[in-house]
């Protein structure tokens, strides 16, 4: 890695050492799933959000590789980055690419300061994997758009300032025609109702978002009318290729090693740990090569799908592997060993890893298309 990236790494580590001192394991284990607005503001002040955005909009003007370094250090340390994660990863880049000059000047600096939370409104009750079948409609009015329909599984909608939403605006010959992306101001738009959904662990992070004659201004449209599908495809390359697709269970790994250090490890435990480290190293190499392609201005949808499919399978295997290596059950009680608490959290979270951002079957379909088989 270039020296510039490695010196940035040292800066981020020093920052995280300090900023995470009082963050409890339960929050660190959730990592990019945990929202902590104060922490996000500190990240913004330190200049670690919007790192690769242009300087003129408040960004860091640095490379994708340098951004990658910041992300992976945050994930490895279990930084609660959820509040700004989507904005930094995909909504900011989307606005920079397709937004008006006025919008960029208004929104991007706030994203970089860690003050804005975004959510992604794609899925609907009847449109999950088959996203192109979505029905929430934005109809033209004399002064803008009228929206009716329901989004679901929208992570952070209840905390977010904005949603980047995909709505139907027209009909085309193919189902993925006639879709458009919008910037929805969730806090200042009448006709939007947000209802939280509890997950299997009792947490409330995703939501149902109802649009009932919600009126949006003309300029809420992002990019080109009816070309939303192509924009979303680009966005998903960003959403699927990052280090969060194999580091979601890092807190568990971080607790596993010390336990083995204390209790001693036999040959088979050493082999199993080595295989985990090797998978981590290889997935990181794949993800880094996608970051390099993004830096070169490419849109590597196929490679991104590979990272996510293989990465999430790895993440999902960790709770099982850990239990083969150490004979301690998952235990969520506060007085349990930190390792057991992390194991409990990860066991419960793991089923969602391969679903959020597109299921494995769908990703492998994208890869097969890239191979020319579909």
């Amino acid at each position, binding site marked *: *890695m270039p020296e510039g990236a*490695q010196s940035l*790494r040292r800066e981020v580590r020093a920052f995280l050492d300090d900023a995470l001192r009082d963050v409890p394991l339960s929050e660190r284990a959730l990592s990019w799933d945990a929202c902590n607005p104060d922490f996000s503001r500190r990240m913004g002040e330190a200049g670690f959000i919007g790192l690769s955005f242009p300087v003129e909009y408040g960004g860091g003007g640095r490379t994708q590789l340098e951004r990658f*370094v910041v992300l*992976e250090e945050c994930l*490895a340390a279990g930084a609660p980055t959820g509040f700004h994660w989507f904005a930094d990863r995909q909504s900011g880049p989307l606005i920079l690419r397709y937004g008006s000059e006025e919008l960029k000047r208004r929104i991007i600096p706030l994203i970089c300061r860690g003050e804005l939370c975004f959510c992604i409104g794609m899925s609907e009750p009847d449109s999950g994997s088959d996203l192109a079948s979505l029905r929430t409609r934005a109809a033209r009015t004399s002064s803008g758009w009228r929206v009716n329909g329901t989004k679901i599984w929208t992570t952070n909608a209840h905390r977010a300032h904005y949603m980047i939403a995909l709505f139907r605006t027209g009909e085309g010959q193919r189902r993925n025609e006639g879709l458009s992306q919008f910037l929805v101001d969730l806090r200042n738009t009448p006709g939007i109702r947000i209802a939280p959904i509890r997950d299997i662990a009792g947490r409330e992070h995703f939501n149902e978002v109802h649009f009932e004659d919600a009126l949006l201004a003309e300029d809420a449209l992002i990019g080109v009318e009816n070309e939303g599908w192509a924009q979303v495809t680009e966005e998903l390359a960003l959403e699927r290729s990052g280090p969060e697709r194999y580091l979601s269970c890092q807190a568990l*790994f*971080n607790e596993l*090693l*010390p336990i*083995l*250090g204390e209790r001693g*490890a036999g*040959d088979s*435990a*050493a*082999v*199993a*740990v*080595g*295989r*985990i*480290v*090797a*998978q*981590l*190293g*290889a*997935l*990181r*190499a*794949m993800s*880094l*090569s996608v970051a390099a392609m993004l830096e070169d201005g490419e849109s590597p949808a196929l*490679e991104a799908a*590979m990272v996510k*499919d*293989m990465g999430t399978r790895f993440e999902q295997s960790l709770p099982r592997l850990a239990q083969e290596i150490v004979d301690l059950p998952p235990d969520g009680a506060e007085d349990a060993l930190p390792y057991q608490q992390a194991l409990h959290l990860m066991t419960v979270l793991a089923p969602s890893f391969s679903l959020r951002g597109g299921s494995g*079957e769908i*990703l*492998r*379909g*994208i*890869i*097969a298309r*890239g*191979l*020319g*088989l*579909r």
Partner: protein
Amino acid sequence: MRADPLLVETVERMFAENLAPENLSEAHRSGGAGFTALAREMGLDMVLVPQEQGGYGGGWPDAFVIAEACGRYAAPGALPEIMIRRWLGHGADRAEDGASPLPMPAGALLRSAQMAGAAQGLVERTAAYCSERRQFGRPIAKFQAVQQQMAELAGYAGCMQAASQQAFAAVQEHGMPESEESVAWLAIAVAKCRCSELVHPVTQIAHGVHGAIGFTEEMGLQYFSLPLWRWRAEYGRDADWAEAVGRRAIAAGPGATWAALTR
């Protein structure tokens, strides 16, 4: 440092001309003498030798290009080994001695690139075959179950490619490791462990999708799968590398292990 684009182009052209699928069995029957002689005439064995010593003056990313292509095109002969022996400073005679093993961990590094290449070769062969072979009235590539397996196969090959390439880049940046403490050691361990570990899933899918024809000598899958099954065990099995990596990780703890992965 990236590989020299001119070298990439030269290698692709020369390999495609001489190792087309229909010529493979002929190329292998002669023990690969013809191909190796041609490659040496072009100086491909001298890629790691400095220009002052009559070499090409390239780096490890260039060596990856050649070793990977040898795997991907199922090149006969021992061009990759000769290339490493040349780097070790051996003269023409000793460099051709195929019997003696390479030093560790250079041998493991080399095998990772050959395995990544052979896996990619199987992806290409299998994708082409399943688009042609028809059953139930359509190409078997149109069945989702086949597509899912092909995607898995391509993902494994992509993983092998990335891990091996990263190891070659690490050796370029930090030098060939002299001990487990050396910076590039872990990158080589990751590459050899992952590539070896993925050999069986890769060959299983490639042969499976081919059906019985893939089991025939005529089809030629053995030019990829036989070396893969051999290479996975040479210069350390995946379990051997994993054990060494695991012991170090447990002794060092999570912080130091992460630091070693990201140097």
